[in-house]
């Protein structure tokens, strides 16, 4: 254990000093590209603002809630054109050009990973969390998915676990199971309880 502790300690120091070097490198690159006229700093602000405000898991939650309450829409998502169905409620674009929606049932539990980099459906889920981009998730989701699910506090019982490694340009959204006890809820009420992780497939949606 002492060894482990020392290792982590050193590691953090290393990261810290490297961080300031990284900061300098980013600043230098922005200054160079701005000076030469390739980049407008106001464009950088607008790009950050777009990804902070226009995309995120609230978008995906609206898609899920609509699928739970509108059978025709669900059919379009699962067996028609998922990209078009998602665009019809206003979510489209970069890293969501070619969408596939996977339905979780009591027999099949789908979860999504990108073992090669960190491909993720930006328009519906926003930018990926650090754990999704991390070596532990990317290495283990494919080989020991049930152990990973357990770390998320998720028990899928006897369901077959299907892990989707998004190695190409298809982007995956999981349609989680609608929890019992939500009969008669409006789409807005339902969207409130849909979590980001349930749309990656590392959690299930629970009624409050």
């Amino acid at each position: 254990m002492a060894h482990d502790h020392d290792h982590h300690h050193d590691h953090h120091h290393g990261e810290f000093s490297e961080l300031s070097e990284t900061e300098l490198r980013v600043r230098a690159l922005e200054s160079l590209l701005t000076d030469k006229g390739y980049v407008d700093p106001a464009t950088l602000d607008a790009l950050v603002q777009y990804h902070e405000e226009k995309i995120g898991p609230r978008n995906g939650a609206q898609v899920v809630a609509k699928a739970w309450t509108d059978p025709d829409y669900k059919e379009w998502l699962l067996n028609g054109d998922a990209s078009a169905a998602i665009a019809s409620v206003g979510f489209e674009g970069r890293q969501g050009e070619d969408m596939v929606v996977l339905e979780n049932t009591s027999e099949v539990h789908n979860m999504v990973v990108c073992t090669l980099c960190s491909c993720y459906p930006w328009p519906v889920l926003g930018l990926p969390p650090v754990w999704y981009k991390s070596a532990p998730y990317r290495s283990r989701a494919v080989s020991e998915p049930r152990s990973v699910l357990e770390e998320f506090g998720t028990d899928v019982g006897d369901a077959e676990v299907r892990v989707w490694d998004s190695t190409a340009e298809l982007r995956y959204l999981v349609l989680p199971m609608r929890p019992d006890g939500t009969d008669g809820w409006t789409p807005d009420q339902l969207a409130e309880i849909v979590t980001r992780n349930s749309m990656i497939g590392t959690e299930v949606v629970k009624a409050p």
Partner: protein
Amino acid sequence: MGGTHGFGPVVQEIDEPNFHARWEERAFALTLASGAGKWNLDMSRFARENAPPADYLARSYYQMWLYGLEKLLVENDVVTANEVDGARRGERFEPVTAPGLTPDKVDRAMRSGGSARVDEDVAPMFAAGQSVRANVDAPPTHTRCPAYVRGRRGVIDCDHGVFIFPDAHAHGLGKKPQHIYAVRFEAEELWGSANQGGAVYVDLWDDYLSPA
């Protein structure tokens, strides 16, 4: 890195922000703002991933983006390595162009994206239900066939249609459009006695597969 051991548990951060520091925001936005027309997504993936393994694992996600962007800018003659060094010492430079992506165009550019789907009539080599084996190729160049499926047998689950082939596209060799399939590999086929049941679905191009 699929199937590699020893990385420990998956740790979640509660109320995680999109960016953990201002430099992450800037590195992210600089990458999106400076790519248009000069290189493609496959080239930028290769620039990020083609690093010594120890360096790759030590880098944070946006550090990979930063180092990848520096490399692409120099390799594509947008800036020189001397200019990058100069800028780090505080040197300033004269304008040579005007920005292509202006703030008013950001929303439209992000919302239109850029699909890798190719509208061409290319015959599929495989059909749903067919048994296939992932080829044992380990090219030093860019590839999107994960190591853990190479040589393993699977079944075509569905045909996603025709897409750009990254192994060619990343190296300026054209689009070489071909079909991508979701291929189902049983957990036992991939992990033997250590398997936890179920299956892994991997999106693979025609050139990665042979009949089995």
